[in-house]
């Protein structure tokens, strides 16, 4: 019996591995590659305590609101240090994940809009440490089809 892998199967596996790796890289760096929005400004109230609500205000510059699709969210970015091993050495790197996120699609029909988001009572509070940190921020994303989504963001403080 011929146990060799067919040529097409090899390429299929190669394409699947490459696509997974690229998707992982895109997920990791997508946030950093977003351009800053020229159209939207965002502000958040604060400081707030866990269990309270944070008020977020978005302002769309004059005349720019037609055709803009917006998503507004509140998120807590968790940064944590890990040891990454290479062939000959190890290094300390900081990774990112979301400890909390809530997004809403909003209509861009009004120049200024206010939204309220709940900060979970059991969620993290703002903390900037040496190997672990939690940063709360509000973001407005301009959804685009053929270019990266532009972002406007601001930070706010969540107290315990």
């Amino acid at each position: 019996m011929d146990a060799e892998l067919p040529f097409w199967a090899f390429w299929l596996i190669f394409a699947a591995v490459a696509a997974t790796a690229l998707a992982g890289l895109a997920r990791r760096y997508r946030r950093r590659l977003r351009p800053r929005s020229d159209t939207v400004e965002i502000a958040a109230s604060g400081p707030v305590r866990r269990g309270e609500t944070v008020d977020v205000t978005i302002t769309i510059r004059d005349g720019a609101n037609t055709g803009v699709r917006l998503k507004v969210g509140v998120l807590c970015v968790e940064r944590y240090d890990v040891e990454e091993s290479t062939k000959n050495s190890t290094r300390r790197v900081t990774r990112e994940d979301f400890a909390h996120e809530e997004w809403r699609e909003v209509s861009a029909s009004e120049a200024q809009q206010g939204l309220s988001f709940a900060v979970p009572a059991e969620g993290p509070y703002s903390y900037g440490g040496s190997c672990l940190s939690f940063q709360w921020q509000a973001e407005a994303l301009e959804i685009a089809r053929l270019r990266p989504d532009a972002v406007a963001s601001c930070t706010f403080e969540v107290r315990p």
Partner: protein
Amino acid sequence: MSPAFDVQLERDSFAPGERVAGTVLVTEGGGSRTLEVTLAFHEKSPDYEEIPFSQTQVLQTGDVQTGQSLAFALDLPEDALPGHRSEHGELYWELDVKSDEMGPDTHARRRIEVVVHAVPEEDIFAGGFDDEG
């Protein structure tokens, strides 16, 4: 022989600024150079650990005997943060009893919970202002 300890507390939950008082019970006596207890705030990621705050009390110098009971009292800072556990890390308070010995030290650890009670703003002003001078 290495000694063994049990950390005894009246409760496990404290407010910022409160005194964490208890006793260290020696369950097995042995050789020790110094016995001390440390109250510390730990910050932990998957591969690293930092201690942004710690306070130590020396309980005894010299060997410890089985059945000995040593009292300690350490104050939490007024701005002590509560613990929090996330997917990739943890913030927590811990009492660490350390017996300094020849060779590896002996530790007995116990976590405590710090609970921050928020005072609603309406309660602060509930009594109103006395402006009658």
